[in-house]
């Protein structure tokens, strides 16, 4: 009997088997996300490498990139390429550099259709030549995401798919799914799916708004701001 229980324990020790109450141990390597509170709740204590992570922000601009900032900064400083596929706007170099990302390792892939986006993402994941892949697919279907997951498997790159919040209602092959909302100016990270027990409450990350700076002026040619505008600023800035 002893031998049998031993083999059973060995079976449970397999990284690809997880029990309901316990977080899965790292079957695949992970990349620390840089927020201790969030790392503690992610299997393997970080973003999974070689797997899809879906990020579903409630809307644009609530901190979906700041959430990845520390991980991307670490990867890029190790000389690994960050490939951004079909981003919705121009990734702004001054801000990314200020966040510690080595922008010489940032590569943008612009596509003309959602199909091309999926194709390029699959190529980037299958090549295993990237440090991280960020993609903004439009209306991807389960089968298409499954292809991406298979392409990512065994690779070293974490793959982040940014999708619309409505996608939370659809099933997905991604082993980690995260919805983002706001709460008191901070970022509320809701782990919709992970390898392990579901997480009931969102993780609140401290507010990460841009630091309040004193008024900075870049004036090459002197000109006085009109008085009306100055009054206007006073109303808002010092309110």
């Amino acid at each position, binding site marked *: 009997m002893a031998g049998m229980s031993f083999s059973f324990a060995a079976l449970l020790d397999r990284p690809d088997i997880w029990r309901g109450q316990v977080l899965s141990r790292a079957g695949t390597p992970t990349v620390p996300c840089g927020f201790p509170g969030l790392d503690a709740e992610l299997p393997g204590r970080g973003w999974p490498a070689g797997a899809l992570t879906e990020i579903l922000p409630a*809307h*644009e*601009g*609530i*901190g*979906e*990139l*700041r959430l990845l900032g520390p991980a991307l900064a670490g990867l890029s400083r190790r000389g690994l390429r960050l490939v951004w596929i079909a981003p919705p*706007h*121009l*990734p*702004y*170099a*001054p*801000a*990314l*550099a*200020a966040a510690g990302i*080595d*922008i*010489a390792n*940032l*590569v*943008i892939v*612009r*596509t*003309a259709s959602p199909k*091309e986006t999926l*194709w*390029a993402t699959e*190529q*980037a994941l*299958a*090549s*295993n*030549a*990237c440090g991280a892949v960020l993609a903004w697919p439009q209306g991807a279907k389960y089968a298409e995401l499954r292809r991406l997951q298979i392409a990512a498997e*065994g*690779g*070293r790159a974490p793959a982040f798919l940014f999708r619309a919040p409505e996608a939370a209602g659809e099933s997905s092959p991604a082993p980690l799914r995260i919805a983002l909302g*706001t709460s008191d100016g901070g970022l509320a990270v809701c782990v919709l799916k992970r390898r392990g027990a579901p997480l009931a409450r969102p993780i609140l990350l401290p507010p990460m*708004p*841009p630091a*309040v*700076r004193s*008024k*900075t*002026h*870049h*004036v*090459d*040619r002197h*000109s006085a*701001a009109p008085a009306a*505008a100055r009054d*206007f*600023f006073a*109303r*808002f*800035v010092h309110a």
Partner: protein
Amino acid sequence: MAAAAALALAPALRVARRDPATETEALLGVAGWAAQFTPGVALEFPDGVLLEVSGSLKLFGGLESLLERLRRGLAEMGWSSVLAGAPTPRAAFWLALAGKQKFIGESAELEPVLAALPLEILRCNDETLAAFEAIGVRTLGELRALPREGVARRFGQGPLAEFDRALGRLPDPRNFFVPPAGFRAALSLPAEVTQAGALLFAARRLIVQLAGFLAARSGGVQRFSLRLKHRDRTATEIAIGLVAPSRDAEHFTLLLRERFAGLELAEPVREIALRAEDIVPLAGNNLELLLEEGRAPGDWARLVERLRARLGSEAVCGIASHAEHRPERAGVIADIGEKQLQLDFGERPFWLLDRPRPLAEIEAVPHHDGPLELLVGPERIESGWWDGDDVARDYFVARMQNEALVWIYRERRGEGGWYLHGVFA
């Protein structure tokens, strides 16, 4: 046989005119490809290529393995071939000409084998052949059995001297083939092609030839072009650029496939021509001593090439920050891996809009899905008067009703107004 007689026997026969120039070009192409196996390549016009391989056998893992490579490569280029080997070039060529896939290692074994070959392999004119026939001589052996002087008097020294060269009794010097500096090869298609798939199949033949040509020179190319010639003498040019020099036929084929996928052929294609000029030295690859665990890291250059081949070369790019106050010039699209300066800007958003979007202003408050709350600012940016593209703006970090943070500015010139310029994602 006359063409009319041949057509009577086989009505489906396609008659093609023999084109010596094309044949020579093809032979030179094969020679250029075969030079990867040995530096000693000689030509036997119009259809023979001689390779001096005794020094190459060890490198290529023995005769069988070398022959396998030769056969596969020739088949991939679309040629049918007869391979034969012997201690002397002439004997090897004769064996091949007679259709005998024989490999003779010892000079002593040569004579009986050659003696059995028909006289046609001497490639003398029809009259001479008829004369041999008339005296009952059909094989080299029978010719050799005749009194030497008599044969020399009637047919000249030629045939007997050839035989002596084949046996190695007379010297048989050859000029080695010198590959040209650049690669050019063309292929007429047997039928007009409209499908990209069929085109790739044909292009593959030229690509194999190119890869062999490059291997012979231990070189690689960073760009090559495929020209598709149409019926009306117009042509479509497909230029392929690589991130790093390569000579890998599979990789070249892959890039062409991606390019063909997005290709609309206006006209059917009659002929394709492959060209590669700037050949750069390229060392062979060493294999890893120890294989790493998991999947090996992929080849970054290849990924970029694949993406560019399908999406266009502009589609894959990097970003850079410049020492500029104007936000749209401070962060721009750039070449991948451009050298970066460390610059300190103010608070900047992760996303910059392609062009500022005008915002509604209601009771002096800017609106974007509801009123915006100004958090940080103003940061005055006034710059660029020297190039006529100057800006005068006051930037703010603003919070939307849904708590998203945006970067907006107030235009300080003209009609003023508020604009959305970035998103703090």
